[in-house]
């Protein structure tokens, strides 16, 4: 029997038992679709998180005051905890040859009022460098300038939401708002940025850092954001910042430098693992689909015992019967795999339409892997029933009704 012929014979019986073929395929279809859909979901979650962090920039070091450590004994009376100051920021800026930008930040909340409308918002005291470091830009007007900082001017830049809430559609540029009871002139409106890490970027008000210190009556900083010129220099940048600040703080390491990228990469590792786990769970359903194929093929062999007897009587060898049944199961699994891929991809697209916030995406490896696996399942679970069919005794098979 030539190769073409057993393909023909196998397709004959698949066509004749259309409903059963379809139902058998269903197990594999669901399995493959589940693998693709769940992996896409895992990938989507990762993409979502990545997007959330994208605004932060992966080349940022965050310097915060205070050292996270465990100390023994009672606190020494009179020991002063060093703050982060604008001086620290200036040192980093001047001597940090690896840094692209250094942005000191003061943080506080205050009531912002315009005429009879008021809103409680977060106030960020920043320098012009903040724009580049955090990748946030004004849409209308201008951002805070160097002179605004030095002269402690009472000017502010409004986030999109703040502007809309206070001014509606009216022009805000050049108007004065009251921040914590003090008059500020609006010099710019930020572009729309959305929510990042639970903070509504659009619901912020930016003022010059020195002005903010005065406003909140503090002389320290909330944090210093440092962007590194080259991503590969994150670690050496951290060392540089540490040594510079230690020198300024009398050799005390009373600050903490966090590497944004390090935190992200461990988070991504977790999300990748999640994707694999989801894919693995789905693969189990594919395996169950394969067992379904074996189940049906065993029933088929039983049911078609007479047919096998007839084929053997007219000259089919064991190998011919084996190949026929093996090809049937493989064809079922392969067809199931293809339909499953289509269903999975369609499902992923439907999900994208239903939940636009979740950027699901289908990695090529999930398609390749689930397809290969489904073909493998067809062969693997087809072998036993096919062997059973091939080894039937022709006389008994003919007698079987």
């Amino acid at each position: 029997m030539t190769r073409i012929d057993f393909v023909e014979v196998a397709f004959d019986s698949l066509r004749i038992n259309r409903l059963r073929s379809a139902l058998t395929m269903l197990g594999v279809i669901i399995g493959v679709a589940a693998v693709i859909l769940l992996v896409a979901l895992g990938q989507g979650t990762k993409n979502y998180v990545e997007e959330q962090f994208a605004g932060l920039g992966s080349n940022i070091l965050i310097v915060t005051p205070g050292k996270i450590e465990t100390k023994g004994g009672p606190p020494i009376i009179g020991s002063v905890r060093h703050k982060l100051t604008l001086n620290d920021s200036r040192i980093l800026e001047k001597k940090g040859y690896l840094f692209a930008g250094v942005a000191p930040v003061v943080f506080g909340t205050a009531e912002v009022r315009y005429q009879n409308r008021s809103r409680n918002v977060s106030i960020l005291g920043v320098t012009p460098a903040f724009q580049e470091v955090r990748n946030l830009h004004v849409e209308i007007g201008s951002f805070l300038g160097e002179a605004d900082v030095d002269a402690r001017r009472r000017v502010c830049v409004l986030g999109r939401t703040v502007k809309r809430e206070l001014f509606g559609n009216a022009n805000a540029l050049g108007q004065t708002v009251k921040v914590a009871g003090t008059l500020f002139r609006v010099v710019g409106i930020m572009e729309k940025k959305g929510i990042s890490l639970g903070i509504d970027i659009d619901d912020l008000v930016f003022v010059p850092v020195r002005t903010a210190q005065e406003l909140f009556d503090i002389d320290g900083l909330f944090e210093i954001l440092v962007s590194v010129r080259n991503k590969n220099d994150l670690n050496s940048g951290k060392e540089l910042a540490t040594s510079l600040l230690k020198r300024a703080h009398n050799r005390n390491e009373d600050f903490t430098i966090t590497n944004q990228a390090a935190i992200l990469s461990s988070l991504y590792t977790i999300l990748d693992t999640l994707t694999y786990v989801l894919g693995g769970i789905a693969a189990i359903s594919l395996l169950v689909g394969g067992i379904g194929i074996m189940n049906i093929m065993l029933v088929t062999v039983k049911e078609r015992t007479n047919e096998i007897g007839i084929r053997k009587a007219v000259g089919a060898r064991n190998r011919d019967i084996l190949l026929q049944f093996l090809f049937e199961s493989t064809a079922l699994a392969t067809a199931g795999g293809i339909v499953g891929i289509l269903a999975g991809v369609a499902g992923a697209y439907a999900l994208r339409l239903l939940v636009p916030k979740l950027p699901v995406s289908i990695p090529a490896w999930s398609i390749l892997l689930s397809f290969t696996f489904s073909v493998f399942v067809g062969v693997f679970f087809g072998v036993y029933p096919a062997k059973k069919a091939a080894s039937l005794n022709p006389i008994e098979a003919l007698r079987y009704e």
Partner: protein
Amino acid sequence: MGSEAASEPLLRLRGVTKLYEAGAGRVVGLSDVDLEIGAGEFVAVMGPSGSGKSTLMNILGCLDVPTSGTYEIKGKSVAGLSPDRLSELRNREIGFVFQVFHLLPRHTALRNVELPLIYAGVPREERARRALEELRAVGLEDRKEHLTNELSGGQKQRVAIARALVNKPSLLLADEPTGNLDTRSGDELMEILAGLNASGVTVVLVTHDPAIARRAHRTVYIVDGKLVSVERFREIRG
């Protein structure tokens, strides 16, 4: 083939015994059977049910091998052949016609007739051509695309004959071919078999019906797994 037949019989059984393992002991299917069938013969095998007719037919058809004794087709022994070699032998040398037709259900008549050619490795077009020829010979050319379950009993059996003959076997083996047919279809079928034999096909017919057996040129009688004379057979049958 005809001239060969004079010296060498087509089929030769020598001391063929077939034993079956059955529960507690062994059941004798055939006991020391000697039989020669020449090419072109029309032989009926008669015997009551359980006499060993089916066992003899299975051995003649190479579906089974003897426990002891020798069986030769065209001078070649089938002893020790693997199941696959037996399949190839059946494919080339033997055409079967069964009482219950044994056609593939839900396949067309043509597909059924093609079946032996598929396993003989005949290319697709030649297969279809030869199968159609054989269907024409039994007068069913116009039924080629009919599914077997749409055919009458007589038509089914004619499709089975076409299938049996399509690979030009040495022997047509018919097991109670009229058993499931009405009288008229049965008569028609016997006409076909007689005609085939007249054109040179060797036919071995297994039956328990004396009227059918009478159509053959020679009848062998089997009782309790042994070949017996016609007188002995009548005696036993009462």
